[in-house]
């Protein structure tokens, strides 16, 4: 039975973790994800979980300990943001290459330079090529639902890769909103027991992790790892199917909002998608054929599926809440646009960098984007890579 509640995105993640009752949770505080280990350590203190909570001295150690724990056969989870994720960067690669299904709550926050504690996606986008599955969440509800599903996805035998579940710092992490929780037992039954084939603590059968790998074998290891990411797409969809049976809520690789007859669309992730949906509704009332695609799964990247969903459009705005500093647009833009290369008739695709360091994205901001892409008559090189809401 669904439990109707209201809570912040951080609390919803903490509750998902409590219901999952992981074996080990190493974490280090960083705004805005700090509340997650705080809530969780209270669950430990109150005996609500049997988890070994390791209050490590840095995020690098949090991810290192997570790797050690998961390799030892323990279901392991953690949370971080921004500089914390950046400090983990080296170890994110190790977690993925060791094929360890760790789950991580990433509460998105801008990277320092200069320091800023508010939301943007420069942290998780920076980690997009580390070999982690990345799932993005519009609301506290999605963060909660995605987290529970992430455990199953990561641990699936065809996948065995770590997964991070992202949500926007403060915007959803600290906003109290309505949510429907599953019963503890439903979550426990859904995630099941973690029973890895191999672990460091398998008494009859020692294993060794993390060899020095020469050129003779390294590439084969990478190819095998890449295959797991390819297979993850199907697993994500099948886990979503199962999750629907428990929760009644539907998830895919991305969400299509009023796209059937749309001519202009925005591709966007996380909380701003909700704001943009309000703009879509308002513009639809004015008779404008606009729609929206919210990418839920960025890794693995749903290339063919996105191209199919976007092919009938006249123009598309791809929204990046992070700078790639490629001088040619943000990371989501580069990948979405490349996804469309094989289409015989290509829509115009432009990029907007928006919302950096907590710059607010409003219904009016979204409307401005739809207005502007309606005016696109073919692409002109110097105007593809745009900034939204920057003074100048």
């Amino acid at each position, binding site marked *: 039975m669904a439990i109707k509640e*209201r809570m912040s995105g951080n609390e919803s993640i903490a509750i998902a973790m409590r219901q999952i009752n992981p074996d080990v949770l190493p974490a280090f505080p960083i705004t*805005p994800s700090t509340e997650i280990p705080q809530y969780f350590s209270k669950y430990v203190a109150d005996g609500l979980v049997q988890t070994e909570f390791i209050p490590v001295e840095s995020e690098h150690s949090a991810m290192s300990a997570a790797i050690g724990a998961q390799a030892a056969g323990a279901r392991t989870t953690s949370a971080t943001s921004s500089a914390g994720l950046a400090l983990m960067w080296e170890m994110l690669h190790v977690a993925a290459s060791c094929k360890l299904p760790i789950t991580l709550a990433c509460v998105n926050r801008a990277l320092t330079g200069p320091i800023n*504690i*508010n939301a943007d996606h420069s942290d998780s986008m920076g980690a997009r090529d580390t070999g982690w599955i990345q799932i993005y969440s*519009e609301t506290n509800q999605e963060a909660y639902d995605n987290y529970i599903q992430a455990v199953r996805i990561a641990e699936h035998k065809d996948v065995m890769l770590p997964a991070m579940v992202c949500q*926007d710092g*403060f*915007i*959803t992490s*600290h*906003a*109290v*909103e*309505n949510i429907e929780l599953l019963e503890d037992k439903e979550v426990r039954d859904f995630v099941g027991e973690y029973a890895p084939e191999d672990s460091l603590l398998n008494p009859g059968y020692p294993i060794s992790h993390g060899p020095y790998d020469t050129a003779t074998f390294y590439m084969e290891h990478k190819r095998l790892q890449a295959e797991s990411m390819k297979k993850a797409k199907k697993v994500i969809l099948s886990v979503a199917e199962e999750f629907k049976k428990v929760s009644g809520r539907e998830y895919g690789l991305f969400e299509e909002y009023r796209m059937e007859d749309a001519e202009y669309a925005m591709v966007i992730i996380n*909380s*701003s998608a*909700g*704001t943009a*949906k*309000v703009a879509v509704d308002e513009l639809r009332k004015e008779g404008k054929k606009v729609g929206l695609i919210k990418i839920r799964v960025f890794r693995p990247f749903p290339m063919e599926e996105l191209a199919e969903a976007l092919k009938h459009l006249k123009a598309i705005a791809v929204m990046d809440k992070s700078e790639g500093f490629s001088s040619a647009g943000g990371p989501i833009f580069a990948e979405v646009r490349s996804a469309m290369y094989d289409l015989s008739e290509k829509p115009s695709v432009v990029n907007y960098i928006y919302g950096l360091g*907590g710059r*607010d*994205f*409003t*219904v009016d*901001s979204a409307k401005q984007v739809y207005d502007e892409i309606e005016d696109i008559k073919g692409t002109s090189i110097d105007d593809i890579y745009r900034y939204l809401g920057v003074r100048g």
Partner: protein
Amino acid sequence: MSNLVEIRWHGRGGQGAKTASLLLADAAFTIGKFVQGFPEYGPERMGAPITAYNRISGEKIRVHSNIYEPDYVVVVDDTLLSAVDVTKGLKKEGAIIINTSIPQKEILSKLKKYDGNVFLCDARKISEESLGKNFPNTPMLGAVVKVSGIMSEEEFLGSMEESFKHKFASKPEVIKGNMKALKVSMGEVKICEK
């Protein structure tokens, strides 16, 4: 979303404006509303002006941005009137509710730009009389519910009592005072005659 009500809170760090916004979200949730309660974050410490927000609606809320054109503004500390543009974007048909004990005339002179309704509530006095301490956020919560009519007095008080029972489980003696502060403020909040 015609039934959407948007509220902006102004307070100083440590005064409980954020908590008040969360409590209001709580109360509205309890009577079956869709809610948002969120602070605007920065590295502000005790005493710095802070802003918090509420959206309350009968329908699912999808927008995730700050509130620029609120229906109601609540000012938890009247010294903010000269420090912050508290009526910025405030809808004319809405209202501003101010915790103050200073004369109406003086308040109005500080709000010249705004020609909508102004309500006053001496939350400090109410809090001190009911709770023995200055916790202005509780009376201001009563005042904003009364003025906005986002829920009936009965629904609100019922829901708050539940919420206080939960929040103050370890010190039930303060529940009575908090409930009194809510009731008194709902009775005492007054429109400012212009």
